């Protein structure tokens, strides 16, 4: 561990991370294109975007499952070590809860075995300061994940559990290792509405009581409003807007964020801006602003009226820094915010 006070700096961060996948045809698809994000202890960061925005690739890169082509991921300021030992050390501190709990649990393993596996791999019994045995550690993790009484679930198999219980078992498996950060990919998208709130409350509780950092990857802006401190909005491999949850969701600057917000199903809301098409193929990233072919502000002439339309089509945008203020990678937003400041 670091001797300097690590609580000040980010716990986990990415710096200029690029991830390229090369197809057999030789075409390179850039799933992540210079991404800077960071999360501190006790902070909840939401990474939001559509399918194809690179949010899951970013999550995998942050936990070391994917090596960046260029750039680096740092844990408490130190670059990740991609050796077996280095990754093992990383996993004991940073745990990922995968999307789709039903598919992530081994159907032939009992709840006890699923949770105990990590405890054995990371020799948590030997390192437990309270001298608890394996059974006690499993029970404690299940109880923390809200499965009480835990002993009743020890011998159950995944098919005997409800969706919410499966999700809790996965979270318990991650908690058993006492990680400093949990990264959850779409933690509630496959769950019923009534269970969704419970799982989100659990993530908040872990942050409150254990001081964990939490990263949630989601397309659900309501979820971000429920639990996140900060939001990074991704589009085609880049962070296009970031800031505190209040800033990004109540005063979005980027037309993409504005469009995403406008289609959140509600009765009285903004005029919905339904973007046509889908996130483009990452092997053919558009020139200029990568969002310009779908941008409603370019289509309706608002970009033209302040004279940035040419820039939208041709000038690439800067990479947003990981920390700090509410910022959007958008030519139009930049002009609007300067005129605001002048006016």
């Amino acid at each position, binding site marked *: 561990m670091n001797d300097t006070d690590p609580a000040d700096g980010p716990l986990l961060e990415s710096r200029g991370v690029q991830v390229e996948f090369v197809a057999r045809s030789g075409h390179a698809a850039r799933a992540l294109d210079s991404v800077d994000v960071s999360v501190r202890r006790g902070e909840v960061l939401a990474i939001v975007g*559509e*399918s*194809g925005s690179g949010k899951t690739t970013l999550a995998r890169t942050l936990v070391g499952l994917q090596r960046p082509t260029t750039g680096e991921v740092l844990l408490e300021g130190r670059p990740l070590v991609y050796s077996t030992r280095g990754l093992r050390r990383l996993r004991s501190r940073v745990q990922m809860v995968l999307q789709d709990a039903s598919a992530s649990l081994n159907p032939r393993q009992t709840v006890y075995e699923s949770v105990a596996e990590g405890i054995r791999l990371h020799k948590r019994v030997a390192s437990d300061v309270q001298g608890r045995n394996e059974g006690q550690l499993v029970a404690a993790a299940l109880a923390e994940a809200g499965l009480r009484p835990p002993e009743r679930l020890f011998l159950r198999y995944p098919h005997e559990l*409800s*969706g*919410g*219980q499966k999700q809790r078992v996965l979270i318990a498996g991650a908690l058993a290792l006492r990680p400093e950060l949990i990264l959850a990919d779409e933690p509630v*998208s496959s769950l*019923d*509405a*009534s*269970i*969704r*709130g*419970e*799982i*989100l*409350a659990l993530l*908040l509780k872990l942050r409150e009581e254990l001081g964990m950092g939490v990263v949630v990857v989601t*397309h*659900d*802006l*309501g*979820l971000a*409003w*429920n*639990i996140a401190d900060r939001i990074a909005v991704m589009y085609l491999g880049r962070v296009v807007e970031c800031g505190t*949850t*209040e800033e990004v*969701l*109540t005063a979005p600057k980027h037309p993409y964020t504005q*469009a*995403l*917000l406008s*289609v*959140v*199903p*509600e*009765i009285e809301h903004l005029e*919905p801006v*339904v*973007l*046509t098409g*889908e996130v483009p193929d990452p092997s053919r990233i558009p020139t200029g602003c990568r969002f310009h072919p779908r941008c409603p502000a370019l289509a309706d002439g608002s970009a033209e009226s302040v004279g940035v339309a040419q820039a939208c089509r041709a000038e690439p945008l800067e990479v947003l820094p990981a920390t700090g203020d509410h910022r959007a990678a958008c030519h139009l937003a930049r002009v609007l915010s300067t005129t605001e400041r002048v006016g």
Partner: protein
Amino acid sequence: MSVTDSELLTMQGLSVSYQTVEGPLPAVRGVDLVVRAGEVVGVAGESGCGKSTLVSTVLRLQPRDAAVSGLVEVLGQDVQTISWGDLRALRWAGASIVFQGALHSLNPVQRVGAQIAEAIRVHEPGLSQARVGSRVTELLEQVGLTGARGRAYPHQLSGGQKQRVMIAMALACRPQLIVADEPTTALDVMVQAQILDLLGDLVRDLGVGLLIISHDLSVLAEVCDRVLVMYAGRVVEAGTAAQIFTDPLHPYSQALSGAFPRIGDPAARYAPAGLAGDPPDPRALPSGCSFSPRCSRAVDRCSQIDPPLVEVAAGRPVACIRVGEP
């Protein structure tokens, strides 16, 4: 009779019970429901509430061990008793279903155009190859794809495109009633909005009736005229989409509605709303109101009286004895 008020689907006192080794499992318990032409009706509820069983009875697709009682009428025909031949004619051409998990229901080794054509050929065997082809193109364009997309295999399409293909297929034989079971689950917000827009347009343009099943009340609020909320096999509340979403009366509907925060509402910050507990086992329903063990407003009487669906206002039936009480 004018076309707009004709009843395409009528369910009266519909009950479905599965025979299991541990005894009968009542999945649907006395549901009344009507879908008219040009109308979108939604059914909301969590897993296990019986909503998918309900869908299966519309075209007599329920498993053989299911005992169905009550009436299911599609276009005036009693679906549960008509002959096999009449039922075949009704499927696809009278009513069609867009199934849940549509993303996995396409044949992976057949071009999607050919899969749409199959449904047309079965129902109109005399149609020439060219006519079938042009009908497929027309259908694909109707759901916002190009005709050329028909040459694609399912893996070459995105989730939203596959869902569009499924909808094109459901439209293939010009049905009057379409049933969509969780049409947007597993889709992104933007694609979800596109699909909901598409469904709304189809109802408006073609005058079909649409029944949508979803666990997500906000999806139903977006497109439906009327919404029914189901719990443990029963309808516990019904009303217009706006009423159910913004002013739910039954504590269960309130929990469902509260699960989706209004963005910008300070009360929802760091306070995700949930509902403790799991839905009851249909084989061992709690006594009295089946929602009472999870209900925050339950009193002693709730475990004694099984509340009937009572109209508390015009078009607002609610099954809760505490509605209207302080």
